[in-house]
């Protein structure tokens, strides 16, 4: 069976993200005939000189009219090597929150750079967001090489520029690929236009990207999602704790500690979708049974007694603010969701706002506005079991929700 790679595309408006996805799908023969026919007909109606492959992903009427991507489009394709889920995200700064949505579940991000324009603010913002979101693999696609006469000097200069900027990003691995999404060079096939480039094509790189090592198999974290207690005669004594394993490996017989209660027990059985399991690991949805009846319900967490997360009401967060109707200021109360629980959080301090271009911190900032990235401190109404986001993408992540509108207004990363 194949494994799955989730990746997001990012970059500025008009960098050709949707065209690249269209090219990747088309050249890997993942486009259905009726989809291609519809796009070809639409291109002809508009009087385009060529078939606009971007129309394959721009699914909303407003997007086709304006020729921009507003929201994330998810696309799926498989090669004999791997199955891919693509989150094609918008480049327009106004829709940065949708880019964050697309990148939050991605293992790799494709950052598109227009070879004529070089590294621009959006390239930097999206690279920073991707690295904050724990996307470990950045693939910088220097696109529209056909419009700079496939110049190696232009490519080298952009690589240098981006490398200078990215030296301040933490924990990311970067690959550069010169491409033309329109013509197809170095996307699926190498083409004849850039013989000076000796690296992999984009598809080859994505097929062979090693991501399994990115997952945390060390720290056992099992947030309880749902307590299963059948109201039937044959299962009267059954009490199971359902949830998705955030990290680590669990086996029957393992000692566990319940948080926040601090009570201990032993795992007596683990059931998965296919039946009883001798062991279960991060990403699996399972039901755990314990040897003892202890106080344990939704929002609580099972961990190993000798490997505990922080249990705290004070959070130090990296944060992306996503609401256009209000700014984030100290004193604001918001609902907060972490793993499987909700609480309320009060913003106690805006520590700094990040300058996207320089990655320098503006410590005089008093608030965060739409699409701002910064660091804030909040105090939560009850203790949460948390890890640093760089160690754990599940227990280190929070969302903030405005209780007046129920809108999700921020993504937070525990430091």
């Amino acid at each position, binding site marked *: 069976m194949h494994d799955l790679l989730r990746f997001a595309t990012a970059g500025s408006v008009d960098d050709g993200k949707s065209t690249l996805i269209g090219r990747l799908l088309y050249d890997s023969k993942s486009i259905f005939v*009726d989809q291609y026919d519809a796009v070809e007909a639409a291109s002809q109606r508009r009087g385009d000189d060529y078939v606009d492959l971007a129309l394959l992903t721009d699914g909303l009427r407003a997007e086709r009219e304006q020729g921009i991507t507003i929201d994330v489009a998810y696309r799926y394709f498989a090669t004999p090597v791997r199955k891919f*889920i693509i989150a094609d995200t918008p480049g327009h700064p106004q829709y940065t929150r949708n880019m964050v949505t697309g990148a939050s579940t991605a293992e790799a991000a494709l950052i598109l750079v227009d070879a004529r324009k070089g590294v621009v603010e959006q390239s930097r913002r999206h690279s920073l967001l991707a690295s904050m979101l724990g996307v470990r693999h950045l693939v910088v696609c220097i696109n529209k090489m056909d419009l700079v006469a496939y110049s190696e000097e232009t490519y080298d200069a952009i690589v240098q520029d981006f490398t200078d900027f990215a030296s301040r990003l933490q924990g990311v691995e970067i690959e550069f690929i010169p491409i033309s999404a329109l013509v197809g060079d170095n996307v699926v096939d190498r083409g004849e236009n850039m013989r000076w480039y000796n690296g992999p094509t984009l598809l080859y790189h994505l097929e062979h990207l090693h991501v399994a090592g990115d997952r945390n198999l060390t720290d056992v974290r099992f947030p309880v999602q749902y307590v299963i207690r059948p109201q039937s005669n044959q299962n009267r004594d059954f009490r199971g704790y359902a949830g998705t394993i955030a990290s680590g490996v669990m086996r029957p017989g393992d000692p566990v500690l319940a948080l926040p209660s601090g009570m201990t027990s032993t795992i007596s059985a683990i059931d998965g979708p296919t039946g009883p399991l001798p062991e279960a690991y991060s990403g699996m949805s399972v039901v755990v049974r314990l040897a003892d009846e202890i106080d344990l319900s939704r929002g609580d967490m099972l961990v190993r007694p000798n490997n505990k997360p922080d249990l705290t009401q004070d959070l130090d967060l990296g944060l992306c603010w996503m609401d256009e109707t209000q700014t984030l200021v100290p004193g604001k109360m918001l609902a907060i969701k972490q793993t499987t629980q909700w609480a309320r959080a009060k913003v106690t301090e805006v520590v700094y706002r990040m300058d996207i271009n320089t990655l320098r911190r503006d410590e005089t900032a008093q608030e965060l506005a739409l699409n701002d990235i910064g660091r804030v401190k909040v105090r939560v109404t009850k203790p949460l079991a948390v890890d640093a986001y760089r160690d754990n993408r599940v227990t280190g992540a929070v969302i903030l929700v405005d209780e007046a509108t129920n809108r999700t207004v921020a993504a937070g990363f525990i430091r």
Partner: protein
Amino acid sequence: MGYSLSQLRELEAESIHIIREVAAEMQRPCLLFSGGKDSVVMSVLAAKAFAPARIPFPFMHVDTGLNFPEVIEFRDRRAAELGVEMVVASVPEAMARGLVREEPNGSRNRIQSPVLLEAVEKHKFDALFGGARRDEEKARAKERVFSFRDEFGQWDPKNQRPELWNLYNGRVFPGENIRVFPLSNWTELDTWQYIETENIELPSLYYAAEREVVERDGMLYAVNEFVPLKDGETSSVRSVRYRTMGDANLTAAVESEADTNEKVVAEIAASRLTERGATRGDDKVSEAAMEDRKKEGYF
């Protein structure tokens, strides 16, 4: 180290997580169940999510009155096996009351929406599971797993809630609801591979058999009470199967020899047409047909 899930098991785990999250957080969820393959897969995942307990929410079907009788029979049998309540909202009954009127082309696709919304209001459902997949159609490709709908059931595609990680936000005010799509990241091929792996029973119309069909606009329709032969038309008997289960008068069959799960998987893997493009007359109306229906409260 073998600590890596296959793509099918990863999709399964994600779907089960979503289903449990809704059951835990929403007041009154409901699973839309038509007896079609995606809703059947969803019912299997829901059963796994809560085993050995029963599924803790009812199923509902908006019955246009134009469904294949075999599928309706399958629907009721499957719900009974799972021990869940089956709520049926009837379009013909709503037409008789004057709530909705059939459109001239005979499609009851659009008028399903008011009937659905009425049932949601009556039963106070605040979360509806749908079996839609993002690979089906361009507007669906844009939709969140938790898709917020206002009191009119409207989807606002330009203003969707950000959806981060698997931290789903299902918060709604009274009268609003969330449509939830646990199969968002599945493709048609994934669905069939899962049906094969798990040996899931489906209505037999999904498998090839000799059936009497008539050709219209390049598509093959089974001749039955919903699709009588028109003057001048001739029918023929061919080996066909259905890739989707819409209304019997609008859903076309495809020529196929695939009469087992294994053969269907092989056929889908080699197919060069999407399932909707191949079989659904109702989606051909305009480039934005699905987006327009969804804005009005459709799935």
